[in-house]
């Protein structure tokens, strides 16, 4: 079958030993917002573009730099060499018809690049949370997950798996991607939060804080002061109201 993913490399990088974060387009876009926050805060650099018919096309100018005339596309790869971290940011949902092949090609590419592990950030419908007194976060990890020992020391709640595999309702392609990664024997952790559509910025902050516990990105004492709001979050709920409504 012909490859559907077309990469354009902007900067050559050796990704051996890197952690790859992939946000799943899910309820409240929590994973994507969290990645936005990390990219903006760590001032990660764009190292590649990915075009695929699996992505609903969107385009605009660089969402992290006001006044930039650098074009941004629907899927881009950002890198932070200090933290050995890459983020594959998806700005649009996947088209189901091509989804499986897109994800398989993505996993194959990064496996060939010798990345250390993959972390999937996603969310699930808030109404799916059955035990209301527990944390809104859940995780799933495969046997190869490099964060297992750390996870055991934390008081985190594991996702309740059913016989037919991991199913995160409202979590977009996270379950399918997890399955592919598992089959390809790549270490993987899925972290998700129960959320609803609305103002999901607080969810993103919490998600980054949880992620920081297992994948150290920011120094703990002043965690929140190190996070930088991406400029693309401005006007998330529109501009000023029209005067003629008053």
């Amino acid at each position, binding site marked *: 079958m012909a490859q559907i993913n077309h990469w354009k490399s902007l900067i050559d990088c050796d990704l051996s030993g890197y952690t790859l974060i992939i946000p799943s387009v899910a309820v409240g876009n929590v994973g994507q917002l969290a990645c936005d926050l990390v990219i903006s805060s760590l001032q990660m650099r764009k190292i590649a573009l990915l075009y695929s018919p699996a992505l609903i096309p*969107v*385009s605009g100018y660089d969402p992290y730099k006001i006044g930039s005339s650098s074009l941004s596309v629907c899927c881009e790869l950002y890198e932070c060499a200090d933290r050995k971290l890459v983020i594959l940011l998806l700005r649009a949902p996947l*088209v189901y018809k091509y989804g499986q092949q897109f994800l398989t090609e993505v996993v194959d590419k990064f496996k060939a690049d010798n990345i250390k592990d993959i972390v999937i950030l996603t969310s699930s419908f808030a109404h799916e949370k059955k035990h209301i007194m527990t944390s809104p976060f859940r995780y799933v990890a495969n046997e190869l997950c490099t964060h297992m020992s750390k996870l055991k020391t934390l008081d985190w709640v594991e996702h309740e798996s059913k016989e037919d595999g991991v199913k995160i309702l409202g979590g977009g392609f996270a379950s399918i991607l997890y399955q592919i990664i598992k089959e390809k024997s790549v270490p993987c952790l899925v972290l998700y939060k129960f959320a609803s559509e609305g103002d999901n910025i607080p969810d993103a902050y919490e998600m980054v804080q949880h992620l920081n516990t297992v994948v150290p990105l920011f120094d703990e004492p002043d965690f929140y002061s190190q996070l930088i709001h991406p400029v693309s979050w401005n006007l998330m709920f529109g501009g000023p109201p029209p005067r003629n409504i008053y």
Partner: protein
Amino acid sequence: MSSFGEINEPSSRTAWEDWDDGLYSENLTELRFDREMEVPRDINTFIILEGRYIYDSIRTQHNLELINTIADVNLRLYKTKKLGNYVCVIRNYSLVLSSEIVELLKKYINISTNVVAMLTKPLVEYQVAELVTKDYILRSLCTSKQLSKPINIVFPNLEQPNIISGISAGVLCWRETMDQPAIAVVCYIEHPEEQQIKELYDLLEKLDVIPHVENIHRTNLMNSNLYI
């Protein structure tokens, strides 16, 4: 501007498919052009016109020759009689099908020296910190590589966090990935039936899509429900 109380959902949240039930594993139809046609060796400019406003503006023009269609997505492919440019006109299509449509257009896009896309969006979706007082706003998005033959009409860059989506965005992304030039001109408009946007007509004339701007008179009668 927006109507009071109107709920304006971000488009990313309305377009996504529900993956939870796996309902899409069957009945996946494949789009195709209605006629098998030979693709030319090269095209000077490939023009994409998206949306009903632009469709209405050019539908009565006689310097366009219809060469192919994709009826399922209201796509019509024309060739301009004078310059031999290709013009793809599309309206009312499902956003989920955009990338598949771009795949079908690739055989034309890849051999085109320049690609110019024009699309309209509701003014309410234009996001800036200042109050918008104009009836329409024109902005542009360009690939890193500039057009070999500039369109000679300058439109300000689209400000962040505004984005475009759909076929024009797909073509722009593909051209950027392939290191080829393209430009998208986006027109945010409030009352399409009442507007004659001269800058857009000038561009259409320059691209040989319409003959002379002076001769263009949009008839709003067909779009009006006054007499229905």
